[in-house]
């Protein structure tokens, strides 16, 4: 399956532009790591003036007690005040919805946004929580054993694999 990621992102940028018509400029927050790559491009295409926020949801995952993973990536950095602002949350793959739940919990620990919209490059079925994306690059139906991964940061490509 050949998916041109850059094209998808441009389409997402168009959709976002349409949604944001007439509203004050939103803040953009990307979820580490893939979400940040996608968000960087969106941020540039939409010419947002405030810097891009980065969220590392490692501390908010609900599976810490089960997996016990060491959080070991860049710390979150939101170089702005989220109070009363519209936030666009960006991730690469929307699957179970747990990452987004964790991201929203974390954002609310920083302040109280007036709204959060979700932009996902890929929406794969398999939701475990009532979460939906507002802007989607492409919908994919994958079986449980299949994995999809965004590779980057440049160029951005999608890798779909099925364990043999």
């Amino acid at each position, binding site marked *: 399956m050949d998916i041109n990621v850059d094209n998808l992102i441009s389409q997402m940028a168009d959709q976002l532009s349409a949604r944001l018509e007439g509203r004050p400029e939103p803040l953009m927050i990307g979820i580490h790591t893939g979400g940040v790559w996608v968000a960087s491009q969106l941020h540039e295409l939409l010419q947002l003036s405030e810097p891009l926020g980065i969220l*590392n949801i490692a501390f908010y995952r609900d599976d810490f007690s089960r997996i016990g993973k060491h959080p070991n990536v860049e710390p979150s950095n939101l170089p702005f005040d989220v109070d009363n602002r519209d936030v666009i949350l960006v991730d690469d793959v929307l699957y179970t919805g747990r990452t987004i739940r964790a991201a929203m919990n974390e954002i609310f620990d*920083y302040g109280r946004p007036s709204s959060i919209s979700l932009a996902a490059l890929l929406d794969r079925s398999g939701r475990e929580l009532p979460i939906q994306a507002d802007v989607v690059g492409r919908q994919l139906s994958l079986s449980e054993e299949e994995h999809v991964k965004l590779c980057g940061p440049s160029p951005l490509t999608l890798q779909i694999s099925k364990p043999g």
Partner: protein
Amino acid sequence: MTDKQLQLDPQGRLKHFLSIEGLNRKLLVDILDNAEQFVGVGERTVKKVPLLRGKTIVNLFFEPSTRTRTTFELAATRLSADILSIDIEKSATRKGETLLDTLRNLEAMHSDMFVVRHSNSGAAHLIAANVAPHISVINAGDGRHAHPSQAMLDVFTIRRHKQDFYKLKVAIVGDVMHSRVARSEIHALNTLGVQELRVIGPKTLIPTGIEDMGVHVYHDLQEGLRDVDVVITLRLQHERMEGPLLPSASEYFKLYGLTEKKLSVAKDDAIVMHPGPINRGVEIDSEVADGKRSVILQQVSHGIAIRMAVMSMTMSTLAGQQ
């Protein structure tokens, strides 16, 4: 040595945090990197992450200490854990309840972690060796042996100012004999590969055979401070200031107290550290303590981040085992 076996699980992950000895360089760097992430938490409005929500941490302090206890309490709270502080007077245990009996009683309260401080070396090890398998133990100081979280926060502070350990000359000044902080710092700095490590103090306060731990011993402050990048001063306890070890606090200050003048032989950008609380006019004068070289206040906030890092690492290792 038993340190490695007790502290690490078969995959080499940190299960208990008892001493720097037995931990390799990679693990120490992991702790520092994890702490980096937690530094920012203290600057937000909601100074918490939900990482350890639902977990119960017990501060078991057999030796009183407001500072260390408060730092661990803050670290636990910022990780959203429930924390219980118990100050056990040593005399209470003398009334018949042994250390291990106290432990069993506390385990019955569904604790997930014990932070232990004791005036005898090896106490935290004893507890770690006897505790139920789902509980991790953090050593908040045992006798003269180790104070690993203090050493890590000092090393964290050094890294933030100096980046590269390999080029550093570090001097530890003061009562090394009675200092668990010094011993842990020596292990940490050597494991991280500093160029040179020195201890400076009167012979009465430098313990026998400390060279074997990988340090050069100096009794002259000026010689010892020449060209150093980092100076760590240790606290001098009141009871040591007069007696067979030292004649007086004022003589100590004359010979080993840090002043701007004495520091002039160190590097221009040398930093000065102190585990606190400082005795002004004994280990260090106010000009230095409040001056541009001093990073003493930063050490305190770094202490919270380091403790958050260590607590979450050990807790996650045990969570992963279940």
